[in-house]
Structure formats: C-alpha cells, structure tokens
C-alpha cells in the first residue's frame, strides 16, 4: 500500500506540472440539485457536478454511492426526479440517450456492453450512427450518396480502431477478444461518435497494470485533442494520475470536490472512501 501511495504522490507531482497548460475553465456539463430515487432509496440526492472543458474530471466514491446513477441520468437512461442536467448550457431534461449522444456526450459502461456478435469494426462503425444520416430507401437502393457515406464511416472506424490499438482484431467478433481489448473497443465505439464529452464508467476495472498505464496515456492524449472526459474510477493510481478535478460522492451526496492533491488529503474523503474502502478496490 505504501508503495502505491508513493506512486500516487509522483503522479500528483507530474499533474501539477501539467497545470499550466490547462485550458479555460468553461463548464461543459453541469448538474444542478440532481435527485434520483428508486422506490424509497434516494440514489442521488441534490447532487451538483461541474465538468470543465478540456479537463479530465473524476467522480469517485465508495460502492453504492450513486456514481453510476449520476451517469445514467446524465446520459438519459434514467429520468431525474428533480434537478437539472445542463450540457453546454442546454437542459437535457426529457432527452433520450440517442439524442444525448448526438448532442456530444458519449459513454461507456461499467460492465462492458459491446455488441458481442458483431465484429470490432462493426462495433466502431455503429458508434458513428448518430453522425450519419442515410435513410432506409437510399440504403436499400444503395445510392451513390449512401455508398460514399458508408465508405466514410468505414474509414473513420478504421482510424478509430487504429487509435485504440485494435486494428489487428478488426474482423474478430467483439465477444472473442481479450477483456482489456473489449474495454478499449468500447471507448473506441464511444469516440467514434465524435463526442465533446466522454463519460467513462470505471474504464480501468479489470485491466492489468500495464493496460492501466496505457489507458492513462491514451486518455491524456485524448484531452490534448480538446476532448473533455468525466470518469468514475476506483483505481486511485488512475484517478490521481490524470484527473484535473475530483468530485467525491457518498450516499448520493457530494461530500467534497477539488484538485486531486486536496482530495487526497481531505480527511472526510479518507474517512468515507479511502479509509474504509481501500481494501475493496476491484
């Protein structure tokens, strides 16, 4: 554990160096007093979250804190009981998931949800669905426009596959590739929709150390391309290593937010999260 902590400390240091390059603090995503109940259980309680443009924000908290529920509300899978979700100033209330991704929020899932019986390439091609528009008739008749668009989709998908390092698995069924690759494929699929904000639900869970490190490098490279990332993460190495901003959640409420180094030393957080749940990671 001690070694880990050292590790984190180094990461924080390197983070501070990066600080200067941070972009403007324009807020991309904001939740305002968000509340979601399941029966009697209040999963998310008056939760406020801000995600700034071009940054990697993390949402952390012990199991059952309501992090994934926040994601699900933001991406439209659940409807909020009260409160607002604002994306680039626009209220997302009542929007369906497929409309929200079109607005520019793409996501991955905690327990990877790929289209298992489709190839990796097809998975990524499917990711571009909201960015393409050819209709039923042009598809049946295979009009030149449709053919052109399809080629573009394919070209983009191939680029994305190369970007996430899965080019060699392009024709393999998604269910047949290694777990770590599946994680990357899911990110690739989300990226294929050219999002402004990428929401990742525990991207490093199930990855080995090497893969985790690669993931960190990869996510950093994405931010350089002016992508905003919001992630739920349990792996403190990852959180501390890449986050610009950390929000801590417990029992549906926000208990702290701040720079990673502040959070790392925040006694409340340590008590709620690190203190209790360190052993439970994974």
């Amino acid at each position, binding site marked *: 554990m001690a070694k880990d902590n050292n590790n984190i400390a180094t990461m924080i240091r390197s983070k501070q160096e990066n600080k200067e390059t941070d972009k403007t603090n324009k807020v991309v995503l904001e939740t305002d007093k968000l509340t979601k109940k399941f029966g009697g259980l209040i999963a998310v309680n008056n939760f406020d979250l801000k995600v700034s443009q071009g940054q990697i924000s993390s949402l952390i908290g012990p199991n059952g804190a309501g992090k994934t529920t926040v994601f699900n509300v933001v991406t439209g899978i659940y409807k909020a009981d009260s409160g607002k979700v604002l994306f680039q100033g626009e209220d997302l209330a009542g929007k369906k998931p497929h409309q929200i991704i079109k607005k520019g929020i793409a996501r991955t899932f905690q327990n990877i949800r790929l289209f298992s*019986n489709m190839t990796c390439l097809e998975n990524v091609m499917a990711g571009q669905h909201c960015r393409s528009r050819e209709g039923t008739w042009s598809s049946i008749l295979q009009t030149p426009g449709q053919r052109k668009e399809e080629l573009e989709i394919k*070209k983009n998908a191939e680029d994305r596959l190369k970007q996430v390092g899965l080019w060699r698995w392009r024709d393999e*069924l998604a269910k047949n590739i290694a777990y770590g690759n599946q994680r990357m494929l899911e990110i690739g699929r989300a990226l294929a929709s050219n999002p402004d904000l990428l929401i990742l639900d525990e991207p490093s869970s199930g990855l080995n150390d090497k893969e985790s490190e690669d993931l960190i490098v990869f996510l950093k490279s994405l931010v350089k391309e002016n992508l905003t990332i919001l992630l739920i993460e349990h792996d403190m190495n990852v959180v501390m290593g890449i986050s610009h901003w950390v929000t801590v959640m417990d029992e549906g409420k926000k208990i702290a937010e701040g720079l990673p180094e502040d959070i790392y030393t925040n006694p409340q957080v340590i008590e709620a999260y690190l203190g209790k749940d360190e052993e439970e990671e994974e």
Partner: protein
Amino acid sequence: MKSNKNINQKNSIFKNWLVILVAILFIALPFIINAYWIDVLFFFGIYALLGLSLNIVLGEVGLFDLGHMGFMAIGAYTTAILNTSFGIPIIILLPISAIAAGAFAWLVCSPIIHLKGDYLCIVTIGMGEIVRLTLNNNPFGITGGSNGVFGIDFPSLGSIFVVDNSTKFYYYIWLIVGLTIVGLVNLQRSRIGRAWNCIREDEVAAESTGIDVRSYKLLAFLLGAGLAGVAGNIYATKLMIVSPESFSFMESCMLFCIVLIGGMGSIPGVLIGAAAISLFPEVFRTFAQYRMLIFGVAMVIMMIFRPGGIWPRKRGALKFESLLIKAGEENG
C-alpha cells in the same frame, strides 16, 4: 474464426459462383420439372418472401413476432377486396398491399414496441389472432367470413405482361424474392442493418450509441409487414381466393421456424429454412398421417444438432461482404 484475408477472398469468389449457380438453376428449373413441382417451388418462393420479411423483425432485430401471418393477411385481403370490389389492377395493388400492411404494423406496434421478449411475443400472437378472427367474422360484410374473398384477378400489365400460369407465377415470385434479397443484403450492409443488429445485441448500449431503438424497431416491423403484405398480394392472386384459414397461428409458428432453422439474420439461411418448411411436407405427403409426425421429429433433431440453424450468418467478413463497395476496400 480466423480472419485471413486470402481465405476470405477465396470464399468471396466461391460465394459469388454459388449465387450465380443457384440463380441459373432457378431459371432453368421450370424446363425440367412438371407443373406440380413448379407450384411447389412457387409456394417455396412465398415462404421465402415471408421468411425474409420475418427475418427483418426476428433475425435482424431479435423481436419475437409470432403473429406475422396477420400482416400477410392484411396485404392479401387488401388486394382481394380492392380488386374484387373496385377492380383495381393487381399490379397497382402490390405496393398498396405493402403500404396497408406496413401502416397496420406501424399502428398496432407503436403502443407495444417497448415490451420485452416474451411479452412482445404474446402480443404479436394476440394481434395475429385478432386479425384472423376479425376477418373470419366478416366485419361490415367485406371479408366474406370464413369463405373468404374469391374471384381475384391475375397480375397483369396491359395485355403483354400477364401472369396466368404456374411457370409465370414461378418467375414472378422468384423475381420479387430476388429483388428483395438484393435490397435486404444492401440493408444488412448499411447503417440501418447495423443499427438493427446492435439492438438485437444490446438494447441499452444501442440506445447509448445513438440508435433510436424505438424508431428502428418500428422500422423493422414496418418493413417486415410491408414485405409480408407483398407476399399476401401474390398469394391472393395465385390462389384467386383468400380465406382466414390460411393465416393461422400455426402458420406464424412455421415462419418462426423458417428463420430459426435457417439461422437468425442469415439470408441464405432463410431460403434453406423456407425450403425445409415448404418442401418437406410435400416430399413426405406419401406418408399421409405420419407426415407431420416426421416433420415434428425433424424439427427437434434439427435444433439438437444445429441449434444455430443450417446456415448461420457469418460475421467477421465485412471486408469481402461488399459486392458493390469495391473502392478503397483493401487498404484501410
């Protein structure tokens, strides 16, 4: 499944050859066989068309539809009633039947499309039964009750193109099946087909990937029903009579089997499934009352030994899938 370019390339050529061979055989067949077998093959074509239409809903999108015959019935009765009462030519009624069946599907499926799996299944059964029972009860005296509607014309276009004998009907149906196959293969390779498959694989992920699940499910029902409506039109003109007996729940179950025996979402599979379901009973008619017994046993055995169907759809072959998209293909 190894993704080896060379092998795929070979398969591609092989597959094309196979397609051409089968096509030639189908064109030549009426010159070899007698009228009875031409008719059998005609009904094989009808089942193939129906199987293809159900395959959109069941195979591509994974929606359990056990009332598909209801859509065909709408198409067939639209043709029959409009032709016998108003004398509208059959050819014009072909698209009208498709539209009527599609519109019906859209209307009835809109409120129920959110249902999951088996619940959707029973609702489609209910819908099919409602259609059949209503037709049987002769509402407003237009469906002729259990007698059905008879005296339907042949499809014709002026006096030059008249489909009036078994051979012509054979070519007629297989021409339409052929066109449908081309259209459906194109669809399979488009974003629409991909979206459908995504919904089948994982609805939540599909929705989050930007696919309007509800609309695409409805689209599948609409297209499937429309095609079934076309099949209904041709069926009605061939038999010159439509009666509710032809659209029973049992027939819907047989369509379900066509898709599953062939392989979900696989177009060659559907053709094989349709062949199995429509030719088998004819081949075994000599066994009289044992025929259906054998048929049932065959279905069970089939599923035990090839649960994925005879010719399941192959994935991982997107590279050579493009018969028409050739450019920029090899080096991505």
